[in-house]
């Protein structure tokens, strides 16, 4: 009955809100790339003007992103609850798939996309074959 599970996923995806009305925040789209030595997190942040409007908090296992929108967004013609809310920022906590070294993380913001590189904490040694 795989198609029923798929259908339920579709419905859940359609109704799960991508905003937080209490915080007036939108949830951005995020991509996580798990490479051999680092984890790369990219975040789509349309309507965010400059890097100074973004705050990042990194720990060993999570990345928290908050970014102010250049203007408040309101959907006056859409929905029932959400049409009265003014959204002012993006917010997202990304749980990382492996532990990282937060002090070595770097970030760039270009064309509305934030890219954060997080080196993995796992140490590797090269073995000599005798």
């Amino acid at each position, binding site marked *: 009955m795989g198609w029923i599970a798929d259908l339920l996923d579709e419905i859940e995806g359609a109704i799960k809100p*991508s905003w937080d009305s209490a915080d007036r925040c939108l949830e951005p789209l995020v991509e996580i790339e798990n490479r051999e030595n680092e984890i790369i997190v990219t975040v789509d942040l349309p309507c965010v003007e400059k890097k100074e409007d973004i705050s990042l908090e990194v720990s060993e296992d999570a990345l928290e992103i908050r970014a102010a929108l250049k203007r408040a967004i309101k959907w006056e013609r859409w929905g029932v609850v959400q049409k009265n809310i003014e959204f002012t920022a993006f917010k997202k906590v990304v749980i990382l798939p492996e532990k990282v070294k937060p002090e070595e993380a770097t970030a760039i913001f270009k064309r509305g996309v934030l890219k954060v590189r997080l080196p993995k904490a796992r140490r590797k040694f090269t073995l000599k074959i005798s």
Partner: protein
Amino acid sequence: MKIIEKDGVKFSNPVVVEGLPDIGLVGAIAVTHIVESLGLEEVAHFESHLFPPIMVMHKGVLTDPVRILGNEKLLVVTSEIAIPPIVIYPLASALVDWLSAKGARLVVSLTGFPEQNRLEIDKPLVFGIGNLEQSLNLLKEKGVEVMSEGFIAGIYALIMKYCMLKKIPAITLMAQSFPNYPDPGAAASVLQVVNTILGLNVSVDSLLEKADEIKIKARDLMRQTRSALERVGKVSEQQIPLMYR
């Protein structure tokens, strides 16, 4: 899968532009802009129990989410929900049967080509695929670079195939795109080529002006589409085929 037509609509060998949600929502963004710019009205909608039980409200009117809009000579196929994998075959087949009955003379599918380096690209390139010699010639005449080897996966692949079986010329235009974010820049590139091929004269600048707004509004559709694409093996487009000729 059925296509239910509105009463009194006439067709005169229409050209068809398909932009169902796919990579970067390139086609969906481009056709939504065409519909808004040309003020196209609904002419038909798709009906199937395989769709999620979702209806859309527009100006207080209940509307089906997967629709065909247009006029006698131009039809646009669009969806406001992600296409569930189970619907792909019946939808492509029903669409092409219906288009064949209406005497469609050309089908143009619009989509994105996943480009990992998209952040570094100012103006995405557009590649074309044709299903018949006539469609390939059209692409070459209009100066579109043709993708000559590789895999294509998704609903447009089936639409091209079914059109080929019915001898309907079909092309797919694919622009370099963010794989997982809505990409109005890629939609603008593809729209420029559509303008050249079909002589539509739809403003690309006005699409780019509202790029941020589109990206914010399209987040949910992108999330649903991403999950649907993962289930149809879209990744195969990035593989190198082993072919004997």
